[in-house]
């Protein structure tokens, strides 16, 4: 009985106050709000994204404001995500974007097309969905995004990606990770939080041209201090995925071979783990 009461209470509780003042009617000629804005905080995100919210949370999702707009049968959906900090926003943005296709008239980093435009500015990700993909709605998409972006204050640029060495780096391959969900996209080192990122430590990775002509991936993780990095190395070595075979091991790291006979190397230097994987055997 109690559970049913909770069930119904939760079902009809009012939406939380909007975390962001969304643009009003007329942000572009003829476009008006379609319904009220909705706000989602932290774990509430599961009520909006059914099947992918974990990645947002892993990167440090704080809150989301959603507002629909309509004009003569056309619809736009504005989503404004506030992340824990600018690095979290950039990390999630990079994971979403793939190869970026920016609208050049925007100063903010973005990957945009008629169906969806995604921008990152400071700790905010601004997304405008045009589900029909109708080209005639694109000017309104741009106007809507512009209004929102103008209301977001500037924050210091994220410099984390400067930690990955420039030499040999394949442009556009830079990514951030903050936990196992993001890491899983690139490589499987083991179960769970195998690199002990703890949802706080960022890792920076990028692809590189190898000496043999094949690409490999390099992941740099600066931990809080040397003992934390050493602990992470120890944990990784002890819980390495069974498909990875250690072929050489020492106090400052180990090398391994993966299921496709490619090589990998994990090195510890002070508070940093420097991990290379998907290397040709000759690297």
């Amino acid at each position: 009985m109690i559970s049913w009461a909770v069930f119904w209470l939760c079902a009809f509780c009012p939406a939380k106050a909007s975390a962001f003042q969304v643009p009003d009617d007329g942000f572009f000629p003829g476009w008006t709000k379609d319904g009220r804005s909705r706000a989602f905080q932290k774990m509430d995100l599961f009520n909006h994204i059914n099947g992918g919210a974990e990645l947002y949370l892993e990167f440090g999702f704080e809150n989301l404001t959603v507002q629909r707009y309509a004009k003569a049968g056309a619809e736009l959906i504005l989503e404004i995500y506030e992340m824990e900090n600018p690095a979290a926003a950039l990390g999630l943005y990079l994971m979403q974007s793939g190869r970026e296709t920016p609208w050049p008239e925007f100063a903010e980093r973005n990957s945009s097309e008629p169906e969806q435009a995604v921008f990152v500015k400071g700790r905010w990700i601004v997304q405008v969905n045009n589900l029909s993909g109708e080209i005639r709605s694109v000017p309104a998409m741009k106007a809507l995004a512009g209004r929102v972006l103008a209301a977001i204050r500037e924050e210091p640029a994220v410099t984390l990606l400067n930690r990955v060495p420039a030499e040999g780096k394949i442009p556009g391959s830079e990514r951030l990770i903050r936990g196992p969900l993001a890491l899983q996209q690139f490589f499987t080192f083991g179960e769970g939080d195998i690199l002990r990122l703890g949802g706080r430590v960022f890792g920076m990775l990028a692809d590189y041209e190898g000496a043999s002509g094949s690409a490999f991936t390099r992941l740099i993780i600066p931990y809080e201090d040397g003992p934390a990095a050493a602990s992470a190395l120890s944990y990784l070595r002890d819980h390495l995925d069974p498909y990875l075979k250690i072929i050489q091991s020492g106090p400052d790291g180990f090398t391994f071979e993966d299921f496709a006979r490619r090589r990998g190397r994990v090195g510890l230097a002070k508070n940093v783990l420097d991990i290379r994987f998907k290397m040709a055997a000759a690297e």
Partner: protein
Amino acid sequence: MRKTYASMPDENSIGRRDFIKLGGAAGAGFWLGNRALCAQEGSGKPGGKPQAPPPRPKTNIEDALKVPRTRLSLPGLFPGRVVEVNDPSSMNEVKPDAEAVRGMLRKGLSGLTGADFKKAFALFFGKNDIVGIKVNPVGAGIISTHLEVVDAVVDWLTESGLPRGNIIVWDRFDYMLKDAGFTAERFPGIAIEGLQTMDEAAAEGKSGDNSRWLRPDGVHVSAGNFDPDVFYWADVEGPKDLPYLNQHVFNGKFSYFGKLVTGKLTKIINIPVFKNTGNAISMATKNIGYGAVCNTNRLHRPLFLDVCAEVPAFPAVRDKLVLNITDGLRGQYEGGPGPAAKFTYLYRTLFFATDPFALDMVCHKIITAKRKEMGIAVNEHPRFTEYLRYAARLGIGVTDEGGMTHIRI
């Protein structure tokens, strides 16, 4: 647990409108880490002790395995055999060429069975069969099953003597079928059936009125469409709230098969689309594995790809699913399983197989190569195809290199 056995699938637990938002790498494919990823919570600071990944939830798969097989049981009449037909004229930028698609169907069936159109029909069907065509309408307009492919299949069936009234185009969600163009007007004489409805307005918060999907007694209006005696049971539960119930019909640990599948249909043709879900694929086995049962979102995290092997192992699917045609006229190599126009491409290919696991193994390799070609970061860990080898161990698929035959036409 009560009752005996039963089983089927969906990717539909992710709302259609959510898919676009999940475009790019941040799609539902991240679930693929399943057990591996569950240990994140509570992992704490590096000096602490991470939680061990939870064990894989128990399921009732053993109930399915006890049921005697039939002549047509998966992997069907042609275990491990996959036929790929490519026709550059089959699709322009927007629309398939119906005649070219019909030609591809003829070539594909001939390549698969060694028989002509009518003889191929007789291998799989009788004229009294009720044939369900399982489509994938999720990415309507971008990456859903093409109507022209269904047209060609319907023509094949009817020209071979099956009455139009014996054909049902189906999916889990009725409104998605409509959105994707599967309507009675477009397919006269063919039944169009969704296993369930979902009130999108209520799900999206546009309406506080739940009366369109929820009965006064708190039961989903589509509850009667599912067979209480035929179910996939897994020891895991989803949220006990209204949004979940709206989308999934039931809470709890039972995913009931649609009565359409367990009762009305005698044969099934599965027509998925060619798309990824993270580092894995969302094609034949996912279309049927997550499309035939309800209450699926609870399964994604702990059992995601295993469901694609276990649900089709239940007789309601295993003994009825006689043919799979993967619609690769257009493919999507990234951002799936939701539609992401940015990552779609013209592939102009149809795949044919009775064995959906061999079919998915072939398509997994093809789409992985495409992802790499397009510069997508790819994790090729064997875990993303482990469910296909698991299906082989269950005796419902052939997925080892030595046992598979991949024919290109």
